């Protein structure tokens, strides 16, 4: 293993660096220790339990001491054989992809906008982003739901449509949910990307401008590549979050629509596990969700494994 110091100094490493190189570096492990300790201590047992639960028959009686039978892969079979599960799954994947795309594109656009603005407008826009971000998910969903309310909603009033139900049709329901999720997700992406933009060196950009590159070219050839690590990280995070989206769907379902037609995985898992106290199925669904999420981000994972830098 070479240390970064060794890398930087290159071939002409003085003897001291050689010595340092041969000793196992302690610093990286030291720096990592607090994180590892906390995560291992808190998550070690629960993750193990999660795996175990998914292979047992475990409900409320077992929480209170009744022995749990081993049922092998029965729980997984129950889930995967259920046609409805696959319906919910595809629905969730589509929803996730649409939301991630919208959030990233709009978020990036807003970040660029922030970059172009004078400081006064910038403060105003970033404050508005913070206000939106600071609103609790539950409250935001309630307010958006009011806007789209069948009888009293602003949307109907503004569009002049009396009594149009936005939640009755599943597609429309998910459309409203998308608006909410994207609205809630854009601030973080925009502000983080803007923070990243500040790290892009202005010298390189000015040099490019002098060389005659247009704004668009500068964006595409300089900014995006430099922001690539951040963009990839944010996209992968968005995928993770939007795949598991729960609160918005749950609250909207309480307000309207037919839940069977609008269930996404997060809500579905919750309904089965906590709602029915079927912790075994809940654990199996969680693990299945992790597996699927891995599949969704596999491209990124592979790239990351290949390029040690990421």
């Amino acid at each position: 293993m070479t240390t970064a110091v060794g890398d930087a100094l290159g071939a002409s490493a003085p003897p001291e660096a050689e010595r340092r190189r041969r000793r196992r570096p302690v610093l990286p492990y030291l720096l990592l220790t607090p994180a590892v300790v906390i995560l291992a201590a808190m998550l070690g047992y629960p993750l193990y339990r999660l795996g175990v639960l998914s292979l047992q028959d475990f409900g409320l009686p077992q929480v209170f001491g009744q022995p749990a039978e081993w049922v092998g892969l029965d729980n997984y079979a129950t889930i995967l054989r259920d046609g409805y599960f696959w319906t919910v799954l595809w629905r969730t994947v589509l929803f996730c992809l649409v939301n991630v795309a919208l959030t990233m594109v709009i978020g990036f656009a807003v970040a660029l906008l922030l970059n172009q603005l004078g400081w006064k407008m910038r403060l105003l826009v970033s404050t508005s982003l913070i206000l939106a971000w600071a609103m609790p998910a539950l409250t935001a969903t309630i307010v958006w739901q009011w806007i789209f309310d069948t009888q009293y909603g602003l949307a109907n009033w503004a569009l002049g449509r009396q009594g149009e139900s936005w939640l009755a049709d599943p597609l429309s329901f998910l459309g409203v949910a998308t608006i909410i999720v994207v609205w809630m997700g854009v601030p973080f992406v925009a502000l983080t990307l803007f923070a990243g933009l500040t790290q892009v060196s202005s010298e390189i950009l000015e040099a490019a401008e002098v060389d005659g590159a247009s704004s668009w070219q500068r964006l595409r050839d300089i900014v995006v590549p430099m922001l690539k690590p951040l963009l990839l990280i944010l996209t992968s995070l968005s995928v993770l979050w939007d795949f598991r989206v729960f609160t918005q769907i749950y609250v909207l379902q309480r307000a309207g629509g037919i839940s069977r037609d609008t269930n996404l995985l997060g809500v579905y898992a919750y309904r089965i596990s906590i709602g029915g106290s079927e912790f075994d199925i809940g654990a199996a669904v969680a693990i299945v969700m992790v597996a699927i999420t891995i599949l969704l981000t596999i491209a990124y994972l592979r790239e990351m494994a290949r390029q040690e830098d990421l």
Partner: protein
Amino acid sequence: MRISGRRQSRRNRVVVTLLGWLVVVIMTFPVYWMVVTSFRRGVDVQSPVPQFLPDPATLNNYRKVFERDFFWTALRNSLTVTLLVVGLALAIAFLAAVSVSRFHFRGRRAFIIMILLVQMIPAEALIISLFGVLDGWRLINTIIGLSLTYLVFVLPFTIWTLRGFVAGVPKELEEAAQVDGSSRLRAFLTITLPLVAPGLVATGIFAFIQAWNEFIFALVIMNRPERQTLPVWLQAFNEGARGTDWAGVMAGSTVMAIPVVIFFVLIQHRVTSGLTAGAVKG
């Protein structure tokens, strides 16, 4: 450093400003609605013709918020837990992000993958066993217990994101400091840390909001009234009127949103100084 060049055309500036206003309106409209509703009477919350200003307006909802039992207790609990989580998360995550970005060591890749995997697990699936872990350590109904729980959910994401920011700081800067005699660690703290300030701000705010608004774990781990956090308190407040007290919920939510905004304003000012430091160096 504007991408569109040093001199913006007038037309460009107008377009940009208009777009800025568009973003402001879209982002703040629900917030505005929440605040307006908080001044309405419960029965006026929804009406066939939307009213853009509360009429009649009432301070009653806020009175209910501040007078209601345990509000100040919940506020204190929330503040304590949240600040603890943010402080610890940023510190621990920064160190971990540096470790993972600047060094190659055995287990590095495993750690990164584990961090990503942990974020894929739906938190709700872990409630029962996490509760069991905390119960075993007698940390139920304690600030430490809840803070540790939140740390677990905030750390992976924070490390993951800060990685990107640390990667954006050129290694040469740290090495230059080392050549000047400082230790590796010191170089990280004095050179890298200030340069990832914007990233710390973004992730710090995120951690703050996560901890501040989290409900289900706070509900389950803090089951004594004197230990509850604001989101749990708000929900009880919401239920209190037997039906749903929408106006009260809005008032409570507005009050809850204020510390977040304050936090941002405090930090925002620091970001600007971090920015100028970066710009000078180029």
